[in-house]
């Protein structure tokens, strides 16, 4: 069983795949079409700015997760370890390094172009530094650095915003101008941001549809498909506006018909448990993990992973009237840039607002940005909500860390305990 090929999909997922494939084609043809390629990260991405310069964005994280889904990442990781990368290095990095060492063949089977610029937006993940330092060594491409201050005190200050805006003005935009030979076009940027805002409104409606009983979406397994376009090369495009408008209509229809979400084996027959999910997915065993939940009628009604590219559901919108300021706020507000207390508050609100029976914390070996403090989150969230949590462990794209039997044992035990405590006992 593959992770994606054998998964039954709803229309939103099918359209998403087509969109992502179109971007892969654009990437492949970029240099041939005389366009520059800029590598960057999902958290804190500046897609609208890149589009305004007519460059093609490239997302190594997305390449890594795609490699995981098609089960190529294990081989890449081995290559990277043979080249000297340590075991505890993030598996996204090793997959990317190994993929490059193996000929840089991406999703569609074509060679990925070498980046012309590395836009290092540092939002809450220190590994990004070393990753791009490696890529600079590998490709000789320059780095344009955007240092995004961590929201340690749970709020964005004027100083923090100003600091990011100044870097955009002094470092990032000039780097893009040098790269492309074009001037910064603020009007174009505003246009993209206008479209971003519209798409974001639709996305939030989709995410919030999970408040319904039954939820028409799975806000974790399904949502990773839905957020794909907006977290990557499509935010700010007309295609994204269309995509999210259509997705919203599809989801609203399912809500009207009281239909549950799609699962790998078809539409969910019965919603038995509503859960909130904290943590990244496991890409190499994506279908397996999803099925474990779906088989038990467990639906994720809210997740934090679907916010790594922005907390739109808490009110943030890109703002064409404040272009650089709102880009700064976007970067500052990504999930992995939030303090632990803020993450905890968010999770608590999700459990309550989405009427969840409990929550799962999926901790992955690779990711310290997510992982640090997850046990504290678990204990505190249980205390605050009175709802039980389940602690699951695996990894992003290194399948050596996913043990089906142990994973399933923990999840099953948790759901059985939930069921029994709901039923009561003589």
């Amino acid at each position, binding site marked *: 069983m593959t992770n994606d090929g054998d998964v039954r999909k709803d229309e939103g997922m099918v359209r998403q795949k087509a969109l992502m494939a179109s971007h892969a084609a654009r990437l492949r043809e970029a240099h041939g079409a005389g366009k520059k390629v800029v590598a960057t990260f999902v958290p804190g991405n500046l897609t609208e700015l890149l589009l305004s310069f007519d460059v093609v964005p490239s997302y190594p994280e997305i390449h890594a997760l795609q490699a995981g889904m098609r089960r190529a990442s294990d081989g890449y990781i081995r290559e990277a370890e043979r080249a000297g990368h340590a075991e505890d290095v993030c598996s996204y990095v090793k997959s990317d390094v190994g993929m490059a060492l193996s000929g840089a063949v991406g999703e569609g089977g074509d060679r990925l172009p070498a980046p012309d610029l590395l836009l290092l937006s540092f939002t809450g993940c220190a590994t990004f530094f070393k990753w791009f330092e490696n890529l600079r060594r590998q490709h000789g491409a320059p780095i344009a650095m955007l240092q995004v201050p961590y929201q340690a005190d749970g709020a964005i200050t004027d100083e923090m915003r100003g600091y990011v805006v100044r870097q955009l003005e002094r470092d990032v935009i000039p780097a893009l101008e040098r790269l492309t030979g074009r001037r910064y076009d603020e009007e174009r940027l505003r246009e993209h941001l206008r479209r971003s805002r519209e798409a974001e409104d639709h996305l939030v409606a989709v995410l919030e549809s999970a408040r319904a009983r039954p939820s028409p979406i799975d806000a974790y397994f399904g949502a990773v498909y839905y957020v794909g376009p907006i977290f990557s090369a499509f935010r700010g495009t007309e295609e994204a506006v269309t995509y999210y408008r259509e997705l919203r209509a599809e989801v609203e229809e399912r809500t009207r018909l009281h239909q549950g979400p799609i699962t790998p084996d078809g539409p969910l027959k019965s919603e038995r448990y509503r859960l909130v999910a904290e943590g990244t997915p496991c890409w190499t065993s994506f279908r397996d993990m999803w099925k474990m939940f779906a088989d038990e009628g467990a639906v994720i009604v809210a997740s934090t992973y679907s916010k790594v590219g922005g907390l739109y559901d808490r009110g943030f919108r890109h703002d064409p009237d404040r272009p650089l300021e709102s880009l700064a706020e976007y970067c500052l507000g990504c999930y992995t840039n939030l303090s632990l207390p803020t993450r905890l508050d968010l999770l608590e609100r999700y459990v309550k607002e989405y009427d969840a029976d409990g929550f799962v914390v999926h901790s992955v070996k690779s990711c310290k940005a997510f992982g640090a403090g997850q*046990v504290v989150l678990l*204990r505190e969230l*249980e205390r605050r909500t009175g709802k039980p*949590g389940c602690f699951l462990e695996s990894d992003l794209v290194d399948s050596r860390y996913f043990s089906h039997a*142990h994973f399933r*044992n923990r999840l099953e*035990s948790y759901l*059985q*305990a939930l069921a029994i405590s709901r039923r009561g006992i003589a």
Partner: protein
Amino acid sequence: MNGYLGIDLGSTTTKAVYVDGAGNVLGRGITDTRANFEAASAVARAEALADARFKLLATMLDGASALAGQARLLHRRSERRARLERLERRSLDLAAGAGDDASNLRAAVEQLFAELSRRTASAPAEALFADALLSEAAGIAEGASLVSSVPYERLAGIFERALVADDADATTLDPAAAIASLATGTAPETVQRAVDRCLAEPLAVDAQAGTGYGRHRLPFAKEEIRSEILCHGLGCKSTFSRTRTVLDIGGQDTKAIQLDERGLVTSFQMNDRCAAGCGRYLGYVADELGLDLSALGPMAMASHRPARINSTCTVFAGTEIRERLALGELREDVVAGLHRAIVVRAMSLLARSGGVANELTFSGGVGRNPAVVKFLRELVAEHYGNVTINVSAESIYAGALGAALFARLERVPC
């Protein structure tokens, strides 16, 4: 008599517990887990029901309960004889197919089994597991190879293959024969009556539940399968009614479980990833030191100054052991340090699961190790103060007991 059965299919042993309508334990059975899970669960079930039958007899015999023990011993010996006969038949078949050496081999096999029967004839009433039998047979084969032309490997190899082939055999004897044998013509009437009453009592299984890692392979309906975390929690609570935290250190995993006042799980943490926090660690240490696993605890208890062991990894602990011994540290101090290390990891798991609430019940095979218990008491007192810690030799049955209790609870209308 109404009854409910729980079966815990573990990695090393399979346990069964039979309880009555009030949840009291009537019988327990244990066998070694085989490749054939159906056979293992059938044997465990038969053992539990036989145990119940003998306990019933003991109750009915009132003052003459030594007779029940006698019947049990007789039963066990009959079973053992039957098993050895079966193994001998299989071994002879294997020897017959051995080509030109067949007649020598046959003779060697017959001698081996004669010696094995002699040695096990006076063994106690517990079940004899395959590895113990193999160990005994290997010893005999080694001796035999010194005085005959049959090489050790051939003879021991035949026995091992016979054992493997016998793996799926779930034949058990009905204890009725052994019990009935007490009611001889010269037996007092009270005994005759007790035997009749005992044998007439039906041991019904009104509902059953299965648990353990192999649970999905049990021949049970899906609704009858329960997670071993839940079963363990409920089982420990049943034995020690004020249990709120359970620590279970097994051979291959460690669990820290928090319970509510009903014995239902509120949270748990598993170490199912690292051998250094499980019984496997001690097994490795025993191998490294060339000791029997059962000798480790007593050796550790003899230490006055446990070493601080630094390795986080079972594999690297071996290096550290050798280094320390080479530097002149006492074996008992090093071994004590290793025991302390496994408890330190358990404390970390307990902390992650929510801490240690009063009372803590310590279960799992490792609970039989006195040094582990000692360090657990010390470290719990140090970090959590005055907490009652329950340890019981019966705790290996906690999972099966919990499963039986779930079978009972789910059947009893609320």
